[in-house]
């Protein structure tokens, strides 16, 4: 394969990886720090898309749509934390899985009731609708470049918050030793609320950015949630660095697997294998490091 083509596929892999990263941050923090398994994370992804579509429709402005949709997801996340998630802290993981799976079903049906079953449309802002000539012969969609850049910026900002601020210090401490943080007199429930809302907003942002690429439809969050859980397991629960590295690993590996394996092994076997690559990677990493690449010491 030509080097230019390889490079372009690498871009595709990184773009996919960064979307996974935005989702994985929330899952890994919510599980690592709050010890809550939240399957409804995929619903925030889906609702991000729907909110954006609706706000653009009402305001006729992409920028306003993004801001209002993010606010909407944030408020919804806070409400969810307050009403559904908080009573679950003292319950086991099975109860959490059942309750949050119930939320998934609820939101899917809600979306059908409000917007119908047919896939819907989010227009790409016109300045991003063209292609960018990366190098000779590769016209890359401008929109994909833009969302990769946004995701990277969010990653950097997140790193800054976690590494350099007092809040970040509390989050890190919470991930390592939750009890000690509480004993130091920190109101951990406020940190929980913040983390849950942050996770929801990032998932919603991923949904908003992916919506114009894919189809906006009920249940669009589930397939990506499964991959997100894989990313979190590979990266090590509770670790943002782990989530970043695992996301990029999964994104790039999945992309190249889909392209190269059918060439090497023929269509049938190659396709079967390319569907498995990510899970083989997960199994291999778990054999080598049973708690993921960067395990935190919580729980």
């Amino acid at each position, binding site marked *: 394969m030509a080097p230019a083509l390889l490079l372009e596929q690498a871009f595709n892999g990184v773009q996919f990886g960064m979307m996974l990263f935005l989702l994985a941050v929330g899952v890994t923090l919510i599980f690592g720090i709050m010890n809550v398994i939240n399957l409804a994370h995929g619903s925030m992804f889906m609702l991000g898309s729907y909110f954006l579509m609706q706000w653009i429709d009402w305001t006729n402005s992409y920028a306003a749509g993004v801001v209002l949709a993010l606010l909407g997801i944030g408020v919804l996340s806070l409400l969810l934390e307050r009403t559904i998630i908080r009573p679950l802290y003292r319950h086991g993981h099975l109860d959490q899985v059942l309750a949050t799976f119930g939320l998934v079903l609820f939101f899917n049906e809600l979306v059908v009731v409000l917007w119908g079953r047919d*896939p819907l449309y989010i227009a790409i802002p016109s300045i991003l609708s063209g292609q960018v000539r990366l190098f000779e012969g590769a*016209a890359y969609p401008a929109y994909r470049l833009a969302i990769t850049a946004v995701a990277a910026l969010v990653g950097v900002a997140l790193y800054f918050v976690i590494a350099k601020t007092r809040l970040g210090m509390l989050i890190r401490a919470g991930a390592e030793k939750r009890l000690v943080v509480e004993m130091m007199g920190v109101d951990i429930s406020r940190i929980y609320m913040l983390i849950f809302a942050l996770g929801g907003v990032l998932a919603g942002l991923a949904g908003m950015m992916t919506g114009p690429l894919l189809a906006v439809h009920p249940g669009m969050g589930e397939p990506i949630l499964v991959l997100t859980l894989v990313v979190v397991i590979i990266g090590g629960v509770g670790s943002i660095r782990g989530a970043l590295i695992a996301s990029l690993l999964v994104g790039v590996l999945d992309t190249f697997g889909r392209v190269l394996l059918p060439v090497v092994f023929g269509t049938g076997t190659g396709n079967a294998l390319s569907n498995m690559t990510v899970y083989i990677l997960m199994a291999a990493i778990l054999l080598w490091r049973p708690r993921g690449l960067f395990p935190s010491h919580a729980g």
Partner: protein
Amino acid sequence: MYGRLCIATFAAAALWSGGAGAQELRLGLLTALSGQLSVAGAEQKRGFDIAVEQLGGKIGGLTTEIIVADDKGDPGEAAQAANRLIDRDKVQIVTGLPFSHTMMASVRPLLNGGAFVVGANAGPSTLAGEGCHPNLFVSSFHNDQWDIAVGEYMSAKGHKRAYFMGMDYQAGWEHTKAAIRGFKGEKVAEVYTPIKQLDFSAELTQLRAANPDAVYVFYFASSAVAFARQYAQAGLLGRIPLYSMGAFSDPTLFPAQGDSVLGVVMSESWNHQLDNPANKRFVEAYRAKFNRDPTGFAARQYDAVMLIDSAVRAVKGNLTDQDALRAAFRKADYQSVRGKFRFNTNHFPIQDITVEEVAKNEKGQLYSKLIGVAINDQMDPDYQKCKMPK
């Protein structure tokens, strides 16, 4: 104790009367009403409802009990729903069955349970060949029918090198391979993607690098929306002509696909512009109710109900005489929205295959413009493999 006995007696009486009431039709509609593929199932339901309305709720002149079952677009759910239709609901005829993979899972339980099955969309090749069954009628199409035509059409348009892509399941393989068979030029690549995949960045990068003259794809519902938009975003729309089959772009998907499907050429066995009285009646009723053009899913389901109506009417509502009912189905003595229609010996259609193009009308709205008939009276390639018992 006495009360329970009473309830049991009443229940038994109710069951008995349900089973023996020969002058009532128990009709099952098995389709996908939830899940990623439910866009198609919801359309089938709309076509079904219009047909039932036009027949005044009495199919074949009989009081009709309609049981709607959701297969969720999933083979496991489809098999369960099929068993419920037989065991609990005691249906005599089942229609719907929108997708090949769910149909393969549900058709045996239904036929073994003694029901007649009228497939209104999917047309898997196995059921047309060795797997044919005296009580199975597929009134829609054989998976290969449309795509042989579009493959030939691509050759006729002078394309020499074509790139083929489809969804990685039975219908995807059959439709795509049929297009390859119809196409006379060079096959550059044959790529299959998982049913649930919606991001085609890697595949589109490969496609652009291969630089073919034309592209054929088999995608429908959400995946067709995602593919079309990403094809346009990659700058390929208008540069490399895109071909597909009718479900790739239709009025349920136009709002989400927008201009990204303009100029896509597709093969079908029906178009809303087909000029015959049955089609006019259907299209007008649909437009009046839903305020847009119908899709092929709705048209085929409407047609299937009209076929069932004709067969039940022909046997004067006597559903216990299965041989007579089968003979009536074989005749297909009804006005199809496709115009000409008859069944082959394997109970799959012999029909005209049309070609259509997504275009804009004077109001700037997308519609499927009928280009013409590509193949007249097309038979499927498998009918000789079917040893239909007399």
